[in-house]
């Protein structure tokens, strides 16, 4: 069966549904099911493409003309072994979170807006769908300008979401989030424009022609720094605890995905096309990744606020993937991407768990929580599963990503100093266990405070999608070949 314009559909269908849902305001929270159905449909399309790729039916490429007057920008979509899994998993996370947000947003909108509810559902779900478009769009783009457009397309909705539905001090934080990310995107834009001047084209594949040009190093620098800001490496990380801590939890996973997306972009653009220039940044990137890992770990340990803790852990976790990519080995990069994907699965679950706890108890401070496992066993299970993904416990996917990546890291570490660095890096993962399992103990174990006696388990619309995500993670964990076999040839072709 041939689907006409499959990749265009993946982008366009959610946009169209988003516009249509403006007129479906009467549905209220049931709009969530429409969003879920839409994203499931696009996911199915991508799964179909994925099966084709698995069977060796070449990479999908679609091309549409966007602007020819000055720049000759083509609107291209490329689904190869690297971009498709990234896009697919991000889309699935969006789908799961759409389902999750039905109940969550009901609670949140009730809390915030009271009587003017219906309009807010429309705002939420129509904007929500744009996330999926943005994320998938970045992954599938073949064109730098297009990639920038989709990057910003993820930013505007998340800004509005945080501002409308966030928590304490949400307006300031939304603004902070916007500006930091805008700075990152702007850096990326500078890189893009430099690249355009160098090559005369916005095509990703044209970046190759830059090699040997004086611009190349600057292009590399700006793109890298831009995405590092978005990925919240040490120094640029200050926005993330706030943004993650205070936004509505239903989009937390998506923002974690946006944070991690930089890994993909760096691999696609810098590793893939500018390898010989990107090499220069390998060592600084390694160092900053390790600093970020360790600092992020300690920062997470220091948190008492549940959402903020997972936010801080994103800093640390994203740095793992950066570490993998910075090694410039095939193993490291494959592992980095794998780890990024499994991390967003796990982080989605963890944030959503924090959201469930917040939704059902109204408390975020872990010092006031405890013993919830008796009241909400499914949530506790999810929390442990998510922690397992993060702290690389088999049979979930985190482990597979981590060891593949660390093979790359150790391979890179040729000298004795390199070995020490690699060892420091691998021991930094130990912190993960502390900051993922300790909260589990603090929130779900121990005696139940008396004021939480009446807490109920979350409805299935909240927990089931998360179990679905964990199932994906489980599949990736026990059969990592399904992902590795897709990514590896692409990365291999990229590596000289």
């Amino acid at each position, binding site marked *: 069966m041939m689907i006409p314009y499959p990749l265009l559909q993946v982008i366009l269908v959610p946009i169209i549904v988003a516009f249509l849902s403006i007129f479906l305001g009467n549905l209220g929270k049931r709009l969530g099911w429409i969003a879920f159905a839409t994203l499931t449909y696009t996911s199915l399309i991508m799964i179909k493409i994925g099966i084709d790729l698995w069977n060796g039916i070449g990479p999908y490429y679609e091309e549409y003309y966007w*602007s*020819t*007057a*000055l*720049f000759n920008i083509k609107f291209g979509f490329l689904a190869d072994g690297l971009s498709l899994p990234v896009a697919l998993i991000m889309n699935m996370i969006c789908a799961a979170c759409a389902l999750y947000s039905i109940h969550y947003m009901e609670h949140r909108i009730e809390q*915030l807006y009271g009587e*003017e509810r219906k*309009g807010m559902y429309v705002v939420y779900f129509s904007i929500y769908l744009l996330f999926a478009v943005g994320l998938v769009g970045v992954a599938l783009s073949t064109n730098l*300008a297009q990639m*920038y*457009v989709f990057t*910003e*397309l993820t*930013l*505007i909705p998340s*800004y*509005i979401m945080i*501002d*409308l539905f966030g928590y304490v001090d949400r*307006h*300031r934080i*939304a*603004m902070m989030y*916007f*500006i930091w990310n*805008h*700075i990152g995107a*702007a850096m990326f*834009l*500078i890189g893009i*424009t*430099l690249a*355009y*001047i160098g090559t005369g084209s916005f095509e990703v594949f044209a970046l190759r022609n830059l090699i040997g040009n004086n611009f190349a190093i600057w292009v590399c620098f700006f793109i890298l720094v831009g995405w590092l800001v978005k990925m919240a490496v040490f120094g640029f990380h200050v926005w993330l605890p706030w943004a993650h801590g205070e936004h509505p939890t239903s989009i937390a996973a998506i923002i974690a995905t946006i944070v991690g997306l930089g890994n993909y972009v760096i691999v696609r653009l810098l590793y893939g096309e500018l390898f010989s220039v990107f090499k220069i940044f390998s060592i600084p990137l390694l160092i900053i990744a390790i600093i970020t890992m360790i600092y992020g770990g300690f920062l997470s340990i220091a948190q008492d606020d549940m959402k903020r803790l997972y936010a801080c852990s994103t800093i640390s976790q994203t740095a793992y993937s950066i570490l993998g990519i910075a090694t410039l080995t095939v193993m490291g990069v494959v592992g980095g991407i794998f780890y990024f994907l499994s991390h967003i699965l796990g982080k989605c679950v963890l944030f959503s768990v924090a959201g469930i706890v917040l939704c059902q108890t109204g408390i975020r401070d872990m010092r006031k929580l405890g013993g919830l496992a008796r009241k909400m066993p499914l949530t506790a299970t999810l929390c442990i599963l998510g922690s397992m993904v993060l702290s690389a416990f088999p049979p979930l996917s985190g482990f597979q990503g981590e060891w593949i990546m660390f093979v790359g890291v150790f391979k890179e570490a040729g000298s004795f100093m390199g070995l020490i660095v690699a060892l420091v890096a691998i021991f930094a993962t130990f912190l993960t266990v502390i900051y993922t399992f300790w909260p589990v103990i603090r929130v779900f174990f121990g005696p139940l405070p008396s004021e939480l006696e009446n807490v109920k388990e979350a409805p299935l619309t909240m927990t089931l999608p998360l179990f679905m995500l964990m199932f994906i993670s489980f599949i990736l964990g026990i059969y990592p070949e399904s992902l590795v076999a897709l990514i590896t040839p692409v990365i291999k072709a990229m590596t000289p």
Partner: protein
Amino acid sequence: MIAPIIDLLLFFAITTPILGWLCEKIKRPYLCGIYTTIGLAIALWQVLLMKFPIKISQFSIDQLSGFMAITFLMLGIFASIFSMKYLERDTGIPLFYTLLILMIIGMIGAVFASDFFTFFVFWEMMCISSYTLVAFRKEKWEPIEASFKYLIMSSAGSASILFGMSLIYGMCGTLSFTEISRILTEPNIWVYIASIFVFIGLGVKSAIFPLHTWLPDAHSAAPSPISAMLSGVVVETGVYAICRIGFSIFSCIKWLEVIAILSIFTMFIGNLTPLLQTDIKRLLAYSTIAHIGYMLAGISTGTILGLTGALMHIFNHAIMKGLAFLCSGVILYQLETRDMREMLGVGRRMPITTTTLFISLFALSGMPPLNGFISELTIILASIEVNMIWLGICIIINSIISAAYYLRILKAFLQPITLENIKKVKEGPIIMLIPLVSLAILIIVFGIWPDGLMNYAKSAAYELLRGVM
């Protein structure tokens, strides 16, 4: 018979008061607005049908002039539609429309002019009508003060242009742009002096730092449709004039570098000053200064790409800023305040206005896929292409800074409602929303399909650079 379009518009300008007198008799003042709109629409239709270049008496109409005229007329149509409702509480509506048309005539004439003096006459026409329009609500102190300052500064500037013009005449013995550019090939001290005078004049009008001081006052004090016109097109006429005069008369001197430096100052001033501004229209007015800076940056590259970007940005900015001012007009109309602190949470009550305002502000801050992004990207690319990376980086930095104060507006609009009077506010009347929605759609359309605009702007830029190259 001056030029068909100007004739047509003059006809409308003259007949409007008569019609207005009749309308007031039958208590249907908005008919004036419809009449004006029809007139502008016919003119727009005429311009779109034109075959360039055309030379009629003192006018030579090329692609660039046509491009500008389309911008003016288009925004003029929206402004006049918007005014129908907006001004219903005011008196002297026929006069308003007459002045509006006259202002548009002034701008069109200025961009059509083939010689310096014709340019000057229409320029003054535009200026005088805009002074009057700014002071339209004369019963308040604010428009009067703003208008007086505007008048004095702008007249001083115009006088400077005239002085510079006289010097150029003294050197060349003619005032025709083409003749002058043929004669003035070697720079001498008088060309520099003349250029200083001319740039003072143009600079005042196009609000280059440090001559921008009148702009925030005048643009915020004027009625909102006029603010839209002033910010959207009148100031851009100054930019156009800089291009036209710079490239045809001063092509022998290095004025581009000057513009480059000034553009940086201008955009920084324009973006840093309004950061804590609480008056929404004043804030938007400052952002106009910043956008003038971007346009000047585009011009200062002196390449096709840069000029295309600048011209596109003129057009896009007209749409974006026009929309933003019209939105603020709706809010002003419903809420009767311009202070952002008094409109906390207004977005809840006026979703369409707020959405369109969002679109315009995101476009203004250069977010893709809206049209502001395309033109800014072009300008940035152009500046990097001519090895002025710092200029491109300055634009990007500025777009980040500007995002901060645009977001402050959004923040205010999305706040929970606390004030009593906001709870009662309703969405604006439909006749005001029509221009808003259509402009918002234009923003998105030109963002996603910039090709037509880009082609037009590119050929206009060719037109402009033909003399130089």
